[in-house]
Structures are given as structure tokens and as C-alpha cells.
């Protein structure tokens, strides 16, 4: 099976559908829009399709991956549609800004490609930009050797490198299971899997479980693998500190009460040379925000793009699918993406999408949403994480802003919300633009003001008009003028066959 290495752009003109992101939702959106007769540009920052979920290396046989058959099916469809000239798969195309095309219908994606600025236009757009690990700060979390769980997984699946010899995996959510098992299968010693919640809470939601038996089987398989590799699975525990001088050499693990405060006397020190930590995921919605798409606070505390039954956002012609509409996993993302693609293609053609296909996809989406709705109830983030912090614990890693400065911005300098706390303390104003500390900053500021974080607090941490670094030189030079794309003039670039 060849792995797509992308297409080369030529000529000028607009595509029927722009799809941003080639993960589960984006692949499904692009292929279903193409099947619906649309010309599609699939824009992706990476060199290979699959997104973070199906991140892989050339020659990967799928071992250790999840839902690999679904990826192979989508990749096969992508190759067929590319060969038929209906999809231009544009790799190394990171969208840094999305806007309505000035003075015309449709949308313009501003892209960094090979260090230069470039524009691709479409009559409709499907935003499928996925999510990244959500982080909670704790003392020592900036030490080298402390990684995000997704980062450890990306190293393993994308690079074939094991993050450490003796690893502690910590945080909350079902994603920690494959991370721990993957590390053990690759030869690392997993010192412990530390889950802040009690996943047996899933048993109190039998309907969601019964309608998603594959999810239960998946979890059971991981639990068997944990036992096989003798991994100590601690639930209702958290890594509350990492230790070391120039890199991590140990963590402190504590038992948590119902609000995630440390149970006195429960501290335990575990030696390790790597920590993989994640507390769920944060949807990446800045491109939808560029367009002014309405967003709302989801049950898990993230800001997500609001969509209707056909995955349409509040902006005419703009659709969203997958984790950008709420974290729910790859199967839900594929169903949402396929629906968005079908409806986007139909909107361009002025037709109605195939009723049978829509009904099947809507059923699948409904079934997966039942499971997604349960996730924040079983794997929530409780407020007690704030009690793990010391005054000098850094919240913002980029600008090196400690907890005391974020709290002080509210209690001492008069900031009223996350936006004010950010301006006064510089938390979230560094290179990552608040992607890593946004959640924590919003909650710490709100708590210092004596209230819960609101959608406005979170919203002030997701605005990124320049979503990907672009040099001032490239910006000044402007978009490459004679190098835009039309579907008919797009030619497949080099193919790299896999072993």
C-alpha cells in the first residue's frame, strides 16, 4: 500500500471543499466529499496522512496502532480519489490563518509551506484540526524527561523511540492505557500507570457501554496487557510532583480524595527517568475562531465549535468535524467527518446528499456520542489539582510565569478574568500562545476571583490569529502568486512505497 506523500500545486482557482487536517475526521471528510462529486484540497501540516491518532512511519505495518483497518480503508480511498484527480493532498501545508475570501464567496486558507506563504481557496471548508493533550501544572513538570502522553506516543509511533527506560504514565482518561501498554511492548519498564479517576465509574453507564461494546473490549484488552506486563495500575492517584536537578529522576505519587486533594500520609516516591502525562484533550479551534464560528463550553471544560445536525458551524459554508466539536475519539470523528464532507459537497452542488449514507452515518454518530457524553463524567478534571501547586510552580512554561504571578494578577493587580490575568502576568503570551497553559491559567485566575471558569475565560486563551509560525520575511513577501491550486491542474507528487 503506497503512502501518500502529497500532491504539487499548480495554476489558480478555488476548490469545492477545503479540508483542514488529515486525521480521522479530515480523511473521512475529504474522501466522502470527493465521492459526492466535489473537488477537494486536503491541507495537512504533516508529511503523512493519519493525524496524531494514526501517526506512523514509512513501512509501518499497523502493529500497536488502534483501528488500523479503518485507517487503511480511508488511506485507500484517499489514494483512489487522488488518482482520479478529485483530491489534492497537500502535505507540509500548515494553515496559519483562515478567513472568508475578501470580496468573494468562499474561504481562503493562509498556509506555511516550505517556509513560504501560500494561499488555497475553497467554496466551503471543513475544519478538522483535532486536539492535543490537556495539561495541568504540578511542581517539577518543566523538568526534561516530563513529556505529554501524546508526545510519548508520537515518539514511539512516529519515530520508533522509547521516551525512557523506566516511565511513569499519569493523568486521566482512556488514552493513558495504550500509552502505557505501547511503552511496555516497546521494552520500557512502566513503573506505574497513575489514573486520577476511577474508570469503574463506566459501570454506572451501562447504556453507553452496551452501545459501544468495541470500546469495552478495547479496555479489557489493555487491562489484560497491563497485567501481562506487570504494570501497577493505581486509580484515584496522581503524580503531584516531579523531582530532579537537570532532568527528572523521580516523581511523588499521592492518593486523591473525591475533589483531587492529596490524602494526607499517602505520598510515595517512585524513581523514573521519564513521565508521560495528560489530562484529556484540548480541541484545536483557533481556525474556527478566525472565522468567527460560535463555540461553547463542553461538558469536559473545553471550548468546542458549535455545529448543527449536518456538522455546519454558525458561519455559512464552514463545517467542523471530530475533536474540534468535542472530544469523542476516532470512530466519532470519522462519522462526523464523513457527514461534513457529504454535506459540504452537496452544498456546493446544490443537491442533497445520499439519504442512505447519511442515515447510516447519523446512527453511527449518535451511538458514538453516547459514549463521548459519558467520558467527562468518568474522567473529569476535579478542582483539587490546584492544591498540588507551590507558589513558584510555573504555569506558563514559555514565559516562565509562576502560580503566584497568575493569582497575584487577580488578587493584587485587579485582573477580573483570565484575559486580565494573562495581560498582567504574561501567562499564555509566549511562543505556544497559551496552548499548554490556557486551561490552567483560566481556572487559576477564575478561582483567584472566587468563581468558576466561564466560556469567556477559556475563550481568551484560544485566540491565535497566527496559528502557526511564519517568518516576517515570508509574510512580507506575500503569497506565492502563480502557485495556487485547482483540482484539474493538480498532479500527484512522488510516491514512496512501504516495505
Amino acid at each position, binding site marked *: 500500500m503506497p503512502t501518500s506523500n502529497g500532491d504539487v500545486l499548480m495554476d489558480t482557482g478555488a476548490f469545492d471543499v477545503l479540508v483542514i487536517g488529515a486525521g480521522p475526521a479530515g480523511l473521512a471528510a475529504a474522501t466522502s466529499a470527493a465521492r459526492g462529486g466535489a473537488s477537494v484540497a486536503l491541507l495537512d*501540516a504533516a508529511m503523512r496522512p493519519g493525524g*496524531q491518532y494514526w501517526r506512523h*512511519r*514509512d*513501512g*509501518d*505495518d499497523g*502493529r*500497536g496502532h488502534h483501528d488500523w483497518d479503518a485507517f487503511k480503508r480511508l488511506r485507500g480511498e484517499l489514494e483512489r480519489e487522488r488518482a482520479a484527480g478529485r483530491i489534492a493532498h497537500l502535505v507540509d501545508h500548515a494553515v496559519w490563518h483562515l478567513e472568508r475570501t475578501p470580496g468573494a464567496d468562499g474561504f481562503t486558507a493562509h498556509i506555511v509551506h516550505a517556509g513560504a506563504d501560500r494561499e488555497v481557496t475553497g467554496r466551503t471548508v471543513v475544519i478538522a484540526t483535532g486536539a*492535543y*493533550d490537556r495539561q495541568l501544572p504540578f511542581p517539577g513538570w*518543566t*523538568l*526534561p*524527561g*516530563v*513529556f*505529554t502522553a*501524546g*508526545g*510519548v*506516543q*508520537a*515518539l*514511539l*509511533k*512516529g*519515530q*520508533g*523511540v522509547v*521516551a525512557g527506560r523506566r516511565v511513569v504514565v499519569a493523568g486521566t482518561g482512556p488514552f493513558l492505557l495504550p500509552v502505557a501498554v505501547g511503552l511496555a511492548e*516497546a521494552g520500557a519498564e512502566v513503573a506505574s500507570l497513575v489514573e486520577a479517576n476511577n474508570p469503574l465509574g463506566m459501570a454506572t453507564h451501562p447504556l453507553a457501554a452496551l452501545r459501544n461494546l468495541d470500546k469495552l473490549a478495547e479496555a479489557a484488552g489493555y487491562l489484560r496487557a497491563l497485567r501481562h506486563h506487570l504494570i501497577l495500575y493505581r486509580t484515584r492517584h496522581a503524580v503531584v510532583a516531579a523531582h530532579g536537578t*537537570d*532532568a527528572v529522576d523521580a516523581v511523588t505519587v499521592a492518593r486523591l480524595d473525591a475533589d483531587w486533594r492529596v490524602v494526607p500520609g499517602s505520598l510515595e516516591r517512585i524513581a523514573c527517568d521519564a513521565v508521560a502525562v495528560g489530562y484529556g484533550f484540548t480541541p484545536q479551534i483557533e481556525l474556527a475562531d478566525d472565522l468567527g464560528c460560535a463555540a461553547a463550553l463542553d461538558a469536559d471544560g473545553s471550548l468546542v465549535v458549535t455545529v448543527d445536525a449536518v456538522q455546519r458551524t454558525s458561519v455559512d459554508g464552514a463545517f467542523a468535524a471530530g475533536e474540534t466539536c468535542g472530544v469523542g475519539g476516532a470512530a466519532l470523528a470519522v462519522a462526523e467527518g464523513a457527514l461534513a464532507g457529504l454535506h459540504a459537497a452537496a452544498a456546493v452542488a446544490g443537491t442533497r446528499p445520499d439519504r442512505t449514507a447519511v442515515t447510516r452515518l447519523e446512527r453511527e454518530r449518535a451511538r458514538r456520542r453516547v459514549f463521548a457524553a459519558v467520558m467527562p463524567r468518568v474522567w473529569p478534571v476535579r478542582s483539587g489539582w490546584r492544591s498540588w501547586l507551590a507558589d513558584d510552580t510555573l504555569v506558563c*512554561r*514559555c*514565559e*516562565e510565569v509562576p502560580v503566584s504571578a497568575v493569582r497575584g494578577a487577580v488578587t493584587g493587580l485587579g485582573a477580573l478574568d483570565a484575559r486580565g490575568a494573562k495581560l498582567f502576568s504574561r501567562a499564555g503570551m*509566549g*511562543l*505556544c500562545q497559551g*496552548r*499548554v497553559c490556557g486551561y490552567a491559567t483560566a481556572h487559576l485566575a477564575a478561582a483567584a476571583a472566587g468563581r468558576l471558569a466561564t466560556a469567556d475565560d477559556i475563550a481568551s486563551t484560544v485566540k491565535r490569529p497566527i496559528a502557526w509560525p511564519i517568518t516576517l520575511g515570508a509574510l512580507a513577501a506575500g503569497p506565492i502568486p502563480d502557485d495556487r491550486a485547482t483540482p484539474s491542474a493538480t498532479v500527484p507528487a512522488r510516491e514512496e512505497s512501504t*516495505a
Partner: protein
Amino acid sequence: MSAPERPPITFAFDGREMTAEAGQTIAAALLATGVRSWRTTRVEGRPRGLFCGIGICFDCLVTVNGEASRRACLTEVQPGDRVETQEGAGRADLER
């Protein structure tokens, strides 16, 4: 997870010769040889290395062939690259 069948490549990290698999990122190549940090922060001068691994956190910035602030998690090693620990913003030439 079989590795691509291409010969390993060599590069330099702070003057030391290192090897990497073809196609590997700088971060992966350094971590595979036990190097965990390759930057010191601007304010406190603290060591940093890989964190998010997917290009969003900007913690893994490194100087490559004299160019500062490349993301080690996204930048593939090229044969003969000179990779150097980045101090602060990596632009001491512009400071003072």
C-alpha cells in the same frame, strides 16, 4: 513498527558526533542517544527538551546550522547537521 531500511546518518550535537536513523527528527535522535535537554530558558536559564512532541508547545527549540529556534520535534535530521544547545532566545548575537 519496523524501521525504514535506509542507512543511518551522522550529525553533530554541541560538537559531538551522533548517529540517527534516516527520517528521524532531531528530538527523537537526541532522546534515542540519551540526551534529554538541548535548550536553556531565557529567564531562569533552566534546561528544557521535548515536551509535547507534536509542534505545539515550542519547548524543544534548538539551533540548527546556526539558525535559532527550530522545533526539534518537527525538524528531520539531515546528514552533517550542526545541532547546538540553544541558550535563551538563541540570539546572543543580537543582544547587548
